[in-house]
């Protein structure tokens, strides 16, 4: 089993799926040469017919994926930075989400939307915003996000094989994150959360970079609080069962999410826990999110992003 970075793991998923299924292809801007290393070496093996670069025309680029998916191909469309998906948002959210269901659930739309997201590069809002919450707001689209190289490979493969549009953002802060990645053909099913750490005092639901923070805080608080850490992995569909099972044990929940407080995924989970798990709770669910500000760049993103200190404070508050 190899130690790979998260982007190398995505690269393996691409290469294996491209080899396995001729209908799989990648489309984006400068993905042949690469901006991020996750497409490195693919054009050499699969050629420019299957690793497709387009002009800077997000609608047209997305149209290649969308139209080809209707034609039975299995495209992965790479928006480079997540915010760029907004340039063709009518298509990427509304037209995509409604295609299958509104037209009578007769014809699938198997495509994957991917992009780099997140704070940490100091690039500010348009280059740093999250997209998982926004896509999760729009029905008909699955949304999941890897936190480890293992999950990155298995989740991307699951997404490529899924018969629905699936959005898989990956966080730039995990680009060089290393982890064991089997060479086999495995998938990480969309819709299954992972309990990353068992605990009995409080549950933390955290994903991606924030999962790292949550695990670090949990380790730090060992002895003081027994913290259970869950990675939702998938936002749509969301594994409510795993969360409620955990809450039955801990009765306390902190949700950490690198998205805005207003309308983010953390709000959805909190509201669902309110409805489905109220009686399990010994304290109100607390969210650690981005405040409702366009993500500033420079040093300032550090002042507002969720971080270990804020997570620790939330744990102390919910356990008080």
């Amino acid at each position, binding site marked *: 089993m190899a130690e790979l970075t998260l982007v190398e793991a995505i690269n393996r998923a691409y290469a294996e799926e491209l080899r396995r299924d001729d209908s799989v292809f990648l489309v984006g801007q400068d993905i042949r040469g690469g901006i991020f290393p996750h497409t490195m070496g693919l054009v050499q093996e699969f050629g420019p*017919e299957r690793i*497709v670069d*387009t*002009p800077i*025309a997000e*609608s*047209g680029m*997305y*149209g*290649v*994926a*969308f*139209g*080809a*998916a*209707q*034609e*039975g*191909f299995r495209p992965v469309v790479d928006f480079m930075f997540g915010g760029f998906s907004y340039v*063709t948002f*009518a*298509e990427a959210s*509304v*037209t995509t989400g*409604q*295609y*299958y*269901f*509104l*037209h*009578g*659930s*007769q*014809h*699938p*739309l*198997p495509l994957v939307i991917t992009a780099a997201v997140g704070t940490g590069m100091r690039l500010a809002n348009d280059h740093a915003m999250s997209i998982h919450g926004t896509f999760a707001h729009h*029905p*008909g689209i*699955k949304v999941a996000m890897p936190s480890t190289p293992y999950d990155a490979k298995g989740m991307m493969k699951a997404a490529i094989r899924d*018969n*629905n549009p699936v959005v898989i953002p990956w966080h730039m802060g995990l680009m060089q994150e290393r982890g064991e990645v089997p060479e086999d053909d495995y998938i990480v099913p969309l819709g299954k959360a992972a309990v990353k750490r068992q605990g009995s005092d409080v549950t933390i639901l955290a994903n991606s970079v924030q999962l790292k923070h949550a695990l670090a805080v949990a380790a730090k608080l060992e002895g003081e609080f027994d913290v259970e850490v869950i990675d939702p992995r998938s936002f749509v569909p969301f594994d409510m069962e795993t969360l409620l099972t955990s809450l039955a044990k801990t009765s306390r929940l902190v949700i950490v999410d690198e998205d805005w407080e207003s309308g983010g995924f953390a709000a959805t989970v909190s509201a669902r826990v309110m409805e489905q798990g109220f009686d399990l709770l010994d304290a109100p669910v607390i969210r650690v999110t981005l405040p409702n500000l366009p993500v500033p760049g420079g040093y300032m993103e550090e002042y507002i992003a969720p971080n270990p200190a804020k997570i620790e404070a939330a744990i102390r508050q919910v356990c008080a």
Partner: protein
Amino acid sequence: MNLNKQQMRILYRNLVRADHLNRMMYQRMLQGKLIGFYHPSDGAIAPGVAAASFLNKDDNLSPHHRGHGITHMLSKGIDIKYYLAEHTGKDTGCCGGRSAFHFSFPEHKVYMMSGFIGYNFAPSVGWGWAAKRRNLGQVVMNCSGDGSYGQGRAHEALLMATNWQLPIIFYCENNGMAIHSEISEMHPTEDVSSLAQGYGMPAMVIDGQDVFACAEAALAAIEHARKGKGPTFVEAKTLRIKEHDMGTPDLRGWEARSEEEKLALMQRDPLVLATTRVLAEGVLKQDAIDQLHEEASREVQEIEDFADSSKIARPSEEQLLAAAFAP
């Protein structure tokens, strides 16, 4: 490219059918027997008939929204009864009664409609990309109005289709209006197809009231595309005789269009013009024409009967939720 008589008869027949179906839709809307809205195609049925009558089943078609694509779909061989059932909310509708005016006939490669004007351009690039990669001679017939070329999506599609020499026909049904807006205010040149020059894409401008001229242009563009010679822009100058959308006032800018103006337009009704020609050229005799009308009436009747005798779709919320994602 000269049409033979057989081709002319096909076109004429589809024109008659399109005319009857448009009248039926208009009537039903007036009678409250149609869901949502209807954008009548009076005066504008020739381009769609011409664009779609000679497509192969595996060619992609994106119908123009005017007349809700019925003209185009019937000409491609799609049975409209499933669309009327859809448009009346019935469970026999092509989308199970879920979609209102939207449609989908994937087996005919009419995948969808979206309510966004200009939505057709980007998927057409994808269909064209797929056709080129498969290399089986499929073409993409991308039909939309003059107004739709305002959208930036049109540019992106023209650009990418030319870059990659995709087999796409940009078939512009230019009725000189978009809702109340006149094209002279909304486009700076005489022809929308002037845009094609910017990409070095071949273009033709034709009389959109003449179904045979439209078909000659369409066939030439289709052949060009099938041979791998890339995209063509076809601009059919057509008319809008009625209001944009039933219930919306019929304005030019912000003043009512005059009745005289509309009467004058009616003189150039495509069915009137085609009838004169088929009779003059001996393509069809009057009794054959009468028979086509009778058949079309019967077709309309069958379509309406099918829709009216179907049940309103009444799935439960649970059933709908279970259908949200593909297995």
